[in-house]
């Protein structure tokens, strides 16, 4: 496991990011954004405003019209698909609304996938599963789990290889409020424990409350919203 290395450059920087859909609708227009190390932001906005697109652009999964995304100071958008893929597997972690836990691998195997892709030993996956409260259930299959448990597995998978940046797309969208609360607590705790930066796209104010700051995406740009006190702890 690599220690999170202290870095002078910000974990994520977007410069003049622009994107329009095939239909001609402009989603992002010269978006600028900087995320410091260990910082956890929530991005909110109306449906279809381009929140997921922003995440995809940051992850190198979609192509921008112009602008640049820097992760740990490294430009993403100019990378080839293979290099972007390598950058993704080393420096990024993902949490999705639909969990996307691989159904035919055990929990342990699911969590170990990022380690294996980075050619690392898979054993830390055990500790990671324990850290998300699923210790000892490494041999279970995903179909035996509840939604909350699946999302815990996803969080473990997103963090196991100590990425620099976590991207979470509506992580609690499929969960009931109680479970959502537990999952967000876990997510925040783990992000802070690994000192990763995080961008969470969400509709939920309750979820946004777990972030260090909340940004609103509208008209192709991000706007700071007054910082709220973190949820009761």
């Amino acid at each position, binding site marked *: 496991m690599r220690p999170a290395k202290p870095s002078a450059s910000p974990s994520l920087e977007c410069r003049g990011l622009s994107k329009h859909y095939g239909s001609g609708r402009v989603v992002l227009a010269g978006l600028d954004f900087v995320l410091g190390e260990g910082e956890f932001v929530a991005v909110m906005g109306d449906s279809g405003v381009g929140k997921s697109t922003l995440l995809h652009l940051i992850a190198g999964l979609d192509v921008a019209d112009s602008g640049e995304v820097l992760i740990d100071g490294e430009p993403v958008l100019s990378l080839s698909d*293979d290099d972007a893929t390598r950058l993704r597997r080393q420096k990024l972690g993902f949490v999705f609304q639909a969990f*996307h836990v*691989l159904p035919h691998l055990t929990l342990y195997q699911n969590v170990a996938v990022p*380690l294996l*892709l980075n050619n690392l030993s898979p054993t830390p996956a055990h500790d990671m599963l324990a850290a998300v409260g699923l210790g000892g259930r490494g041999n279970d299959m995903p179909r035996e789990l509840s939604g909350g448990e699946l999302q815990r597995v996803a969080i473990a998978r997103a963090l196991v290889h100590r990425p620099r940046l976590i991207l979470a797309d509506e992580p609690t969208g499929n969960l009931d409020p109680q479970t959502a609360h537990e999952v967000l607590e876990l997510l925040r705790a783990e992000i802070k424990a690994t000192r990763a930066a995080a961008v969470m796209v969400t509709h939920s104010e309750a979820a946004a409350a777990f972030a260090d700051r909340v940004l609103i995406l509208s008209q192709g740009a991000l706007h700071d919203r007054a910082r709220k006190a973190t949820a009761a702890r």
Partner: protein
Amino acid sequence: MSTPKTGRGLTTLARWMLGAQWRSHRGRALVAMVTIALGVGLGYAVYLINGAAFNEFSAAARSLSGQADLQVRGAQPFMDEAIYPRLAMRVGVTAASPVLEVDVALPGKSTTLKVLGMDAFRARRMTPDLVSIPSSQAMLDVLADDALFLSPSAKAWLGAQDGAHVTLLGGTSPITLRVAGGILRARPGQRIGVMDIAAVQTHFHLQGKLSHVDLQLARGVDSDAFRQALQSELGTHLVVDAPSDVESRTDRLSRAYRINMNVLALMALFTGAFLVFATQAAGVVRQRAQLAMLRVLGMTRMDLVRQILLEGGLLGLGGGVLGIALGFMVAALALRVFGGDLGGGYFPGVEPRVAFEPIASAIFLLLGVGVALAGSLVPALEAAKAQPAPALKAGSEELALAPFGTPWPALACLVVGVALALVPPVNGVPVAGYGAMALLLVGAIALMPRLTAMVFRRASARRVARQGNVATMLALARLANAPGQASIAMGGVLSSFALIVAMAIMVASFRVSVEHWLAHLLSADIYGRVVQGGDAAGLRPDQQAQVAAVGGIAHVAFARVSRLTLDVAKPPVALIARELDAADPDATLQMTGNVLQPTSWHSGETPVWASEAMVDLYGYRLGQRLELPVGGRGERFVVAGIWRDYVRQTGALQMRVADYRRLTGDVSATDMSITLRPSTTATQVIHALKKLPFGDALEFSQPGEIRARTLTTFDRAFAVTYLLEAVAMVIGLFGVGATFSTQALARAHEFGMLRHVGVTVRQILAMIAAEAGWLTLLGIAMGCALGFAISLILVFVVNPQSFHWSISLHVPWAEIVMIGCAMLVSSCVTAVLAGHRAVSMDAVRAVREDW
């Protein structure tokens, strides 16, 4: 910062994912494996059976020439023995062994016994295996004129032990011989007898005749040069053979048959490849989100391609290994139960044993793996090309299959395929014809998505305008908009139905042509022949007169059938001397094209009518002037016509019996066709003929029997074809089933949604059935068209090139409609069964299973 391309981590991951695939889709993987196993197994079995039969047949043929360096034979079956001392005393020859071979009929046996007349003193070193073993008390039996030595299987066949007496039919009279012992070594199943050469000459009235003289050359003599010098000295009436020619002849005789069998078997494998493609493509569609997630997590495109190919390759390997085992077992069983003859009749009288062949096994194994890899390649590339972000959303199936819609490669395949059909054969094998068939098949399958979309869009538009029922409308809408998936299912139907139609048309065309040919040929009331497979003397003129004098006979046409060797490397051609009306040969033979009228012959020329095979194999043309090893040197012959022959694919020549008698002085007859007087029955006449002194040596049949026998033989020859056809159909249905069930599962969401908006389960099932029905119907229609195209290639390219005869086209509509209906029904049933599972699945579970 970049990690090695494949480290331990990736290897572990690959293993885990293979395990996961196996756990989750065991059934589908097994079906794919079994399909490949069937294809590989069938191909391998056919190869093994043919190979074993061929090798055994060659070995048996070779054992008859033993240690000989060269063999001198007559172009006709027998040659004058005067050549023997000339050869024996020739410089460079260390040993010469004369042999007189006769195929002898036995009372109550349908096949003949090959009896070799040999000089034991001369044969000892030349053909040590064939040395006769007398009892130690009667060494001189090797010279005795009543002693016959039999191979073990000949003894078993005749049920004769040493000391027993057996009766042979020598020409037209019975000869009783004493079984005086065995021969030193015979191949299993080889039925031969050995006698003193003088005894064979006298018993079979072949004084002065030899079949061949085997030669051993002195050390240091250049065998090829010696052979050429000798051949040029001997002229065309005698041929000098090397042992390798035996193999060459056996090879040529059966090559087309063996290759056609192998190609048929490989078609099953091709269908298997399609199933792997369907399985893998469906898998890629079904797992698009999982694959996208792996991409998000950091799997490169190459990693993904490798993973999917690995899966496919393993399926191929498993199927291949299974197929090799299966093929070996089938071959061993078939050889034990049916013998080496797959119905083609090319390898009589041998008992081959199947032998494991490492190289051939490796090739078939690789074929299995290659087919599976090829089937996985397109889906793998598709999966790698997919953008992960959209793939994480539902409903992206069609994106994954979009490139199948590009028409140009498919059209190129079709064009090249048609062009290949016009290319001549390579080394007697219609390679290009097979290539053309494969390309048409591939091109048509690749063109399907576009066609599906076109047809169903139009149909859908019309249907919407007419406000039909919900299920039909939904089905057409889906088919119109999801051509990629639809085409996978249809490809299975298309390929198997096309193959079935092609085979059915080919076999029917052939069978009908043979029937017409028989009807043309069988104009007499009774056909008779001297029961003797070989070439020994037939009926003498006085015996012929006795036959003609039998009451109730209006006319007897006698014929003399023998063999001619025109090229040592090729099997001999048949020479048939019979009554022929030179002005109207079509009355007796089925002529193709024009005939040369007697007015166009030059004086002194003898007309011969050549079979179609002579045109292909020896380049004969109508009106060609040539010399033949018949009669004296310098006789001129002219090809007066080309006729169709479905019996002798190695070639046959017909001439007037009067010409034959004039040229050769041979007035005997081996065959006769009898026309009866009105008011007599065939049975009466046959009875009377059998009462002649030589009646036992004659065999009679009536046109009906001949027809029935010929068609039975025909059907037996094609029995394996029917089997292969059935396998292709089963594999095709497998493919349909696999595609529909994966799609049905993938569409559980869609079905759930439809139910929410108020569509009933019954309607959904009706929609599925309608979809499958429409799709299969289109597949069948296209398969029919494609099959017809392929059958044209089979009938007009592959068949003439392989067997050197032409056939005319006949389409068995009833059979095709029947198979089409069966296919339609079975694919609808499969689709509904698969859909039923999907519809009854609850939404959450569907999400878990499928996301």
